């Protein structure tokens, strides 16, 4: 058994698939000394034409959602007994963000759901998991139910 201190990157969004992936990791892979990086990319709005008032409202809404998500996963982290969990919010595509964080932190493994918030359900694998599988430089766990 290798010495501890694994770094695990998990992409999270508001979907239940994200929760399932997190739960699966906790039940089947979790080690006491794991450090978790939860990567989230809030939805982007096109701000160019927005008036200041609308802009303010939109930003507010985004911040609220991000904080809610953060709180939700902080609870889950605590409940699972994970010692260290960091929430990372990035701009841009979720796949790219997940891979970027994993590269930067030299993660031991990435955990991703099979799909997330996307509307297309015909494929077995969402675009984010698909991207991550093809671009990650470390092992990737694709969860599915």
């Amino acid at each position, binding site marked *: *058994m*290798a010495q501890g201190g*694994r770094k695990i990157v998990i992409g999270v969004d508001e979907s239940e698939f994200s929760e399932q992936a997190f739960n*699966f990791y906790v039940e*089947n*892979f979790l080690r006491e000394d794991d450090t978790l990086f939860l990567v989230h990319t809030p939805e982007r709005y096109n701000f160019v034409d927005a008036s200041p008032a609308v802009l303010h409202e939109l930003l507010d809404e985004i911040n609220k959602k991000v904080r809610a998500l953060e709180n939700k996963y902080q609870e889950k982290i605590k409940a699972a007994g994970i010692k260290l969990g960091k929430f990372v919010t990035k701009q841009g595509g979720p796949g790219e963000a997940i891979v970027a964080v994993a590269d930067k932190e030299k993660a*031991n*493994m990435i955990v991703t759901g099979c799909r997330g918030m996307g509307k297309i359900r015909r494929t*077995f*694998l969402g675009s984010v998991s698909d991207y991550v*599988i*093809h671009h*990650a*430089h*470390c*092992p*990737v*766990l*694709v*969860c*599915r139910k």
Partner: protein
Amino acid sequence: MNSESECVMANIGPNIGERRNVIIAMDGSDYAEGAFKWYMDHVHRADEDHAILLNVTDHRHSLTHGSAWMTADPKLVEHAVHEEEKKAREMEKKLEGYLIETGIEGQVVMVKGDPGPTVTKVAEEYNAAYIVTGTRGHGKIRRTILGSVSDYVVHHSAVPVLIYRQ
């Protein structure tokens, strides 16, 4: 618990007691070996896991014997089949060797068939918790990032898939 037996833990059957089955797809390639070693070092839970080292031999190519492209000389066919069997036995020994070396709780499962669908089917049969696979195996085509079997498995598996790469 694992220290007592040195013999090959083969063919015990699915779902021993409370252990969860983990399928590790192995074709004898370096990628597969790497995946197994990584699984051992970073993922394997000694008191919970039952590792199933799964090897799928694609026997269908031998069906080209007797077609327009190859003679149906019985001796040739017999020889080819014999060679296949020999290779399979060597593979089985190699995989059993991994189990013995590491002393982990597990078994070797050898199956004939179309690799991708067979891996997913066996995973279902054994009620596997998840499947471990490399990005590619023995295949000759290197243009894709994900080999055809791993690609199939990750798209069609009913259970989580861990794709190993370094």
